[in-house]
């Protein structure tokens, strides 16, 4: 009988071998949490999150906003005395929660990432206005107005083209993607 895969093992397996030491090596020193510029906006600090993974608290981890608040500044990485690639762990958790379709509902991050990926499949490049609908409605009326003002000012200053650029060999790019994930048609 195959051994049951615990949540902490599952997460450990998600990290490519070349990304730092196993998260089991964490000595709970808190350097990451002390360093993190976004920690005040996280429901659990990076250190706590690592302890929670170790304790197999799957639901709590999946519903935490910690990794969606990570700015990928990699500051914790370079300081961690245990050589853990904390920022890439955050990426792994984002991917995991998106695959499982389990994440805190009011987050902008997952929706934004999803539309970003779709956009690239449509044009090969990213273009801010296409992305706006994925997050702008979370900002409330005042926020939306502000965004719109900023956008029109940008257009006036010539810093925002009105139409997205497309790459020439977009079809090749799409076929490349299908070789990596051979299921379904990219929309």
């Amino acid at each position: 009988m195959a051994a049951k895969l615990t949540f902490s093992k599952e997460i450990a397996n998600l990290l490519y071998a070349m990304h730092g030491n196993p998260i089991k090596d964490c000595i709970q020193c808190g350097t990451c949490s002390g360093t993190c510029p976004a920690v005040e906006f996280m429901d659990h600090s990076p250190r706590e999150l690592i302890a929670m993974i170790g304790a197999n608290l799957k639901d709590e981890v999946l519903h935490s906003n910690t990794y969606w608040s990570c700015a990928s500044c990699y500051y914790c990485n370079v300081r961690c005395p245990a050589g853990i690639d904390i920022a890439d762990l955050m990426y792994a958790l984002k991917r995991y929660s998106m695959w499982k379709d389990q994440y805190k509902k009011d987050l902008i991050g997952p929706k934004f990432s999803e539309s970003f990926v779709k956009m690239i499949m449509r044009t090969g490049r990213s273009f801010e206005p296409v992305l706006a609908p994925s997050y702008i409605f979370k900002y409330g009326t005042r926020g939306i107005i502000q965004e719109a003002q900023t956008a029109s000012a940008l257009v006036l200053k010539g810093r925002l083209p009105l139409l997205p650029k497309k790459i020439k060999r977009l079809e090749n790019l799409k076929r490349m993607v299908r070789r990596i994930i051979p299921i379904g048609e990219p929309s």
Partner: protein
Amino acid sequence: MSEKVGVYICHCGTNIAKTVDVEEVALWAGEQDHVDVAREYKFMCSSLGQELIEEDIKEKGLTKIVVASCSPHMHEKTFRTACVRGGLNPFMFEMANIREHDSWTTDDREAATLKAKALTKAAIERVIHNQPLEPLPVEINPNTLVVGGGIAGISAALELAEAGNHVYLVEREPSIGGHMAQLDKTFPTLDCSACILTPKMVDVGQHPNITLLTYSEVEAVGGYLGNFDVTVRKKARYVDEEHCTGCGICIEKCPYKVVDNVFEAGLGARKVIYRPFPQAVPKYPVIDTENCVYFQRGKCKACQIFCPTDPNSIDFEQQDEILQIVVGNIILATGFDLFDVSQIPQYGYGRLANVFTSLEFERMVNASGPTDGKIVLRDLETPPESVVIIHCVGSRDENYHKYCSKVCCMYSLKFAHLIHERLPEAEVYNCYIDMRTPGKGYEEFYNRLLEEGTHFIRGKVAEVSDVARIEEEEGKLIVQVADTLISKQRRIPVDMVILSPAMEARNDSQEVSQLFRMGCDFDGFFVERHPKLDPVATMTEGIYIAGACQGPKDVPDTVSQGAAAAARVASFISRGTVMMEPIRASINQELCSGCRICNTMCPYNAIVFHEDSNVSEVITALCQGCGTCVAACPSGIITGAHFTNDQLLAQIEGILWDVRSNLDLVPVE
């Protein structure tokens, strides 16, 4: 000649028997050629196990013995002695390591049993070719060299000298004392470091059995256990030790001051002609030629002018002296360096004035230090109102040193206490990962600090900066740290930060270990022969280690190790001679072509060339049995005793016994 081999397979309790089917191995061994008797036994090293061997030799007339058990490091000697008691030459014995090399490496019982057979078979095949050899007696020169005059070297030297043995103590700096001389109080009892150290330093200086060579370094080491030839360079002090009375007038009159980066850790100054500290042993000053105006520009000579002795003790023409000494044993006690904290830029040392190292703080709190014991900021005036002490700076950290430095938790607590004592109003914070206070009276010391009101924050400090975000932070050092016990990122504004850096191996430990032909570990600390059972000896006979050069340790541990090393040396000295393994090379002179290839390869210069007969010869007394020449000889006519071709080829045949039988099945074309 027909050999009768006895084979003994040890269970080692369950250490071996848990993974190796010892009964099966013994049964199988009994069926091998030449094997007369094969047994398994719970503990072969016990007296009952040894008696088994002795009785079998006597009753069954065994000629060769094999024991398959642990590493020869552990018990080769035990079993050889058992053979001797049974009436055999000790070299008629062979050991197979089926523990470290087998049972401890796997859980696979089948594979482990198979490997145990191969290792045992190899030993059986080899032992058949073993020849009787006689151990070589070596006389031990009763003098001992101790390198490094910190508390480790001082303790070792005094133990030996008190027992009536002569010691050469070589110290690189102008005075002995090492790091302990720089400390103020010592934990946990808080006795004054100088008060307990200086009497010992004085004893060393005055002891008739100690030749103290300060401001000196070992340049070359030849020979081996019992007779090492050591070359020591005694650097010129430019002060004549014969006439100098140590009055210190020269120091007073020298017009030039420089920052003292060694003893005062950069916090204070000294004169260009100086004694590191008032209680220095020996008392003679030394001229720092790099900064001496006379040496640099040819003018001044104030020291000479004011020296009151007759003849004058200042000698600008003095030269380095090279001394040759012969010693029987060597104790290395070269101590440690402090980790360079500027490698961790986020802690701001060197950039933020009021970040200090622990050693700077020791000098500062020392009543005879640069601030007369006052705790002050870099301006040397303002006492801090708040201090953070940061533990584990460069220790327990993959990026610097993975190991725990063991003493810094305790001295960080000591610092907190000293601040409470001298500045009762100051707030003191200790930021630690884990509080490590094992030791007699140590945990009690921690409890005392808890009661004294130190703020303990469990978290490794992320950074120290001067970037104020709110008013309270302005003009302060801000220590940013996760307080993991309350899960909060805190920013603590303080006046002073003290870093407790790792204890690391001396920066030249690699070269020193090569000089003495012994090993350094990955971190640069000297390697002991056995981490538990022999922490003072090294893999090189006659060379011992003591103190922080072996790994981070505090004063009590250092002193114990110094004394232990001395005791080991003393026991050799009192024996007068030791029996050395007769594992030596010999050249078959009839076949030697005189090519001389081996002559230059021998690392011990043990091969001479006879011009008249055009052959080389190994001087047995100098040969260390390393085997370099055996491998190098193009005619293959150098033999290493106990490592003959016959023995080694038979051993290889033995280890491949099952492979060979499989190969036999393949028809040869």
